[in-house]
């Protein structure tokens, strides 16, 4: 039979003091395996974007914003996504006629700061 007593508890207590926690710190550090075809964070190709803003019109949560920082002739396109609002339905990907929006398998964007949830694509 296994010995039980204060000595065993002390050994375990000391061991646990220096051991890494059983749970891993996930946010921003770990990687998560997702299924093939799982909808993750959007990817944006500004060179293909024609500023039609259909993605903005169709987004159910108003998470995506397309901004033209240049002029009408010389476009300098930028897309800003609020991942806190995004429901990852990828309707914007379907709505984009030019293929400027695609989705990745990246689902790892948990953050403790609200500001970090607004990202430029």
């Amino acid at each position, binding site marked *: 039979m296994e010995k039980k007593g204060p000595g065993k508890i002390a050994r375990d207590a000391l061991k646990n003091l220096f051991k890494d926690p059983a749970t891993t710190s996930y946010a921003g550090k770990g990687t998560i395996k*997702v*299924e*093939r*075809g*799982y*909808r993750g964070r959007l990817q944006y190709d500004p060179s293909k974007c024609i500023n039609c803003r259909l993605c903005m*019109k*169709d*987004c*159910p949560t108003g998470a995506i914003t397309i901004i033209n920082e240049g002029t009408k002739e010389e476009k300098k396109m930028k897309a800003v996504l609020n991942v806190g609002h995004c*429901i*990852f*339905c*990828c*309707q914007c990907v*379907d*709505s984009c006629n030019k293929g400027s929006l695609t989705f990745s398998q990246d689902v790892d964007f948990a953050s403790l700061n609200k500001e970090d949830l607004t990202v430029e694509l």
Partner: protein
Amino acid sequence: MSETDKNKVVIPIGPQHPSLDEPATFTITLEGEKVVNAVIGVGYNHRGLEKACESRTYIQDLYIIERVCGICSHAHSTAFCMAIEELTGVKVPMRAEYIRVIVAELERLHSHLLWLGTACHEIGYDTMFMYTWRDREKILDLMASYGGNRINYGVNTFGGVRREFDETTSSDIIKTIDELDEHLKRYMEIALTETTLVSRLKGVGMLSHEDALNFGAVGPVAKAAGIGYDIRVAEPYGAYKEIPVKLITDDRADVYGRTVVRILEMQESVKIIRYAIKNMPGGDIAVKVPRRIPAGEILTRVEAPRGENIHFVRSNGTDMPDRVRVKAPTEANWHGVQHMLKSGRLADVPITIAAIDPCYSCTDRAIVVNSGDNINVMDWKQLRQYSIDWYKKEGIDITALKL
């Protein structure tokens, strides 16, 4: 108070209670262990989805409608898409209809597996709960792989489906359902022979054939009472017009009957998926649908895992609907629950409620804020004084409390 009333005890269960996952109140009047009266109070989950739909475009609404229910998301979006397709007069490609059926049946499988697990958990049979939820997880993985998400798959779009159904997907599905079919045989054997399960569920939550008709029960609750009504058979839509569906009914009219119906329905779903994958035609998966929907009214019906799911859409010719009405199956089944609970025992209350597979947030379509003429508007101070007075009447002086 009469002598009989003195023997009665009223037990309020909810809105927050450990047995069920969503808020609802059940005011149970007991005489000994026997339930003599039950009053159900729902309305804690009203989200104003129908109103939200009116101020958004049809495409945005599709994703709101999909989120009416966390389990029957595909059934809701199918009904909504069917309504829009009917209004615009587009013909959905048959390949897309077959894909919709496969996803709908996978959804039925994971919904029934979830129910079987929770029902067994309610009666303390946690081993079965673990087994069924393990199987459900495999189906959710399939959905994540094909649809792109575990629950709100986002498969449907107006005029078809959003993703091509490739070889890998079909082989993955076949592999999983073959495995599941073997497990379902075992679950059926357990349901038929396991004495603990049978004696715990037989005669509990009775809703006879006549009562089921009177209360307008739908889905497995009605089927267990011998009502052979399934939209897939009664009014076939989409690919169900071509796919043979066997109607499952039972005459036990109790929770045990509902369990058997659900397991048999799962076995039937497996057959439907096999048939659909084998006979899926080629061609496009979607056709274009205009953004502005012609004016008109439409009502569509879809057989969701829990029963008949009704959607009403009124269009005014713009890109936003004039009115959207969703009637989820639980809304029809609530009426019967009150009857089922009566004459039962207190210990049977959780399993009787769970047996209709209730989805509270699907049900809550409206909320009454002002009832009657006696409306009293109070400010914060008055409200505080009112609560102090109310407790004083009950014999508790909360002003004496020091916080």
